[in-house]
């Protein structure tokens, strides 16, 4: 796959290839394309900024995000409290900043779980034929028959509410999607000559899957991960909003929004700003994910 992509992308490929000791990889080409995509660059920049905020969060909140100041309650946005305060007098701006690592972790850890389990199972289901693959696929299908939020909801119900359990629940609900995508890519990659070649020189199944098939299914996995982080942040925030994720007083965007519900009529800012934070984050990840898909393989159906 990589060689054909190169020759069609580089107009004078033969000469280029002749001059270079090592041809540009598929990844280098994708990187160039990604950088040219303006909305992807915006998405990526915002995502990077949010990660920096998340890392610095403990040091950059102007007020203590958890300590309550009853006499400062429900102050509308002003210079001192740019996003106002909630009914316990906590500064919303500080809580939104302090919530950044929790909300981002929700997306990243959930997708780490979904991606690693789903990719391994997808590799197995695509590589082997037989009862194991059939069982994996049927389970994936059965799990896909649940609306993902309901699946996550029932797992939280079983594990009990909490931030960590929500991450696990959302992660598990993403496994079947990864299984499907990885398996489909493995099925097409498996027929390549290099797989036969690896077999002929005596490579074991594990080696073939890890070193020959995995690199070739990486592109859709990366795209699915990026778009998945967006979705997982949204589902995680939804669960927190329902009171099943982060528990008070932990700052998490969905949870802050939920706390602002009761004062929506008199102090709409409490619920408004965390919502904007969620939207900006999810939008950035979606822009980046769309850009990655276009850069890696525009025909990808994700």
């Amino acid at each position, binding site marked *: 796959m990589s060689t054909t992509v190169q020759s069609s992308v580089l107009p004078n490929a033969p000469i280029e290839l002749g001059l270079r000791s090592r041809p540009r990889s598929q990844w280098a080409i994708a990187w160039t394309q990604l950088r040219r995509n303006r909305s992807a660059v915006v998405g990526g920049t915002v995502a990077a900024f949010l990660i920096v905020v998340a890392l610095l969060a403990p040091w950059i909140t102007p007020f203590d995000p958890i300590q309550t100041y009853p006499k400062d309650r429900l102050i509308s946005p002003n210079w001192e409290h740019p996003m106002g305060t909630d009914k316990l007098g906590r500064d919303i701006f500080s809580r939104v900043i302090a919530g950044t690592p929790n909300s981002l972790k929700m997306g990243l850890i959930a997708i780490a779980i979904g991606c690693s389990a789903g990719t391994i199972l997808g590799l197995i289901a695509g590589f082997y034929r037989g009862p194991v693959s059939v069982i994996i696929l049927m389970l994936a299908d059965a799990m896909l*028959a649940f609306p993902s939020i309901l699946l996550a909801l029932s797992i939280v119900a079983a594990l009990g509410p909490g931030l960590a359990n929500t991450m696990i629940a959302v992660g598990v609900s993403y496994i079947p999607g990864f299984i499907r995508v990885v398996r489909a890519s493995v099925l097409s990659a498996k027929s390549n000559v290099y797989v036969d070649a690896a077999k002929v020189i005596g490579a074991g199944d594990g080696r073939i899957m890890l070193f020959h098939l995995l690199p070739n299914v990486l592109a859709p996995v990366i795209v699915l991960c990026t778009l998945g982080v967006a979705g997982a942040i949204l589902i995680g925030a939804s669960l927190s909003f329902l009171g099943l994720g982060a528990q008070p007083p932990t700052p998490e965007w969905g949870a802050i929004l939920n706390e602002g519900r009761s004062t929506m009529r008199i102090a709409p800012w409490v619920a408004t700003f965390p919502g904007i934070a969620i939207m900006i984050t999810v939008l950035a990840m*979606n822009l980046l994910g769309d850009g990655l898909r276009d850069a890696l393989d525009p025909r990808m159906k994700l």
Partner: protein
Amino acid sequence: MESWVRGIDRIRFSQGNAVLQYIQRRLMLSVPIIILISVVVFFIMHVLPGDPVRIMLAGQPVSGEIVEQLRKEYGLDKPIYVQYFTFAGDALQGDLGRSIKTKRLVTQEIFAQFPSTLQLTMAAMFIALVIGVTSGVLAAVHQGSWIDAVSMFFALLGVSMPSFWLALLLLLLFSFNLGWLPAVGAGGIKHLILPAFVLGVGEAAIIARLVRASMVEVLRQEYVNVARAKGLSNRVVILRHALRNALIPVVTVLGLQYGYLLGGAVIVETVFSRPGIGRLAVDAILAKDYPMVQGVVLFSAVIYVVVNLIVDISYGWIDPRIHYE
């Protein structure tokens, strides 16, 4: 995302009863899926770390004796496979157990609440189709123009916006400030507008992107050129020749998207305090009412399978080029 429901074979029409045979086969294919769904639901509730009895008691200080007694009462002392077959056998007979909280039959509660969810999801689907198809067609017809850019930006915003946030903002505007629409509860059409809109917006965004992609493809086809060459008006070409063909892939995903709406109903029903199975599920989880959670989740998944079955079957009617064999 590809799913088992997409496994529709391209089929050829031969005899009158071919459609019936196809329906029969699709029904048969649904059986293993439904069995597996019940396994997954059961597994989540019983095998995951997290003892149902402990969850039910939720930290209440009780003696080990009472725990054992409860365990016996719910059959949790038996081997896991026996428990599954009891559960599946009962479920097949329409018995999903009793709610721990209200002591009413789970099925009774579900059937009492489902019409409200059905109404909400159907209204949301309608809104999503109207907004999604309109903006998708406009974007495709004016490909590359500002109309395209604006509608695709809103589509992206639609999928990135937390529905509960949108719900709160709309409540603030239309119920609290303007006083046009009721904030909570269910009843007439006025109660339906906001929840259905909130639920439909995310869906509209997905449909808009899909319609645009499909329409752009169709507009390049020969038959569109032919229609134009015949001197038909732009309107006729787009609505009668292009749109009808562009909608086929949209119909295929409608079934899949119904699951999205069912999931979204969980949040929308909670925010608007509307009755429905989504809110039933959330209340049940918060009350540690695990037979109810199990029942609602199983029911929703089966509804999803049934909806997809209906979409698959009606597919041939929508696209006459597809035949049943």
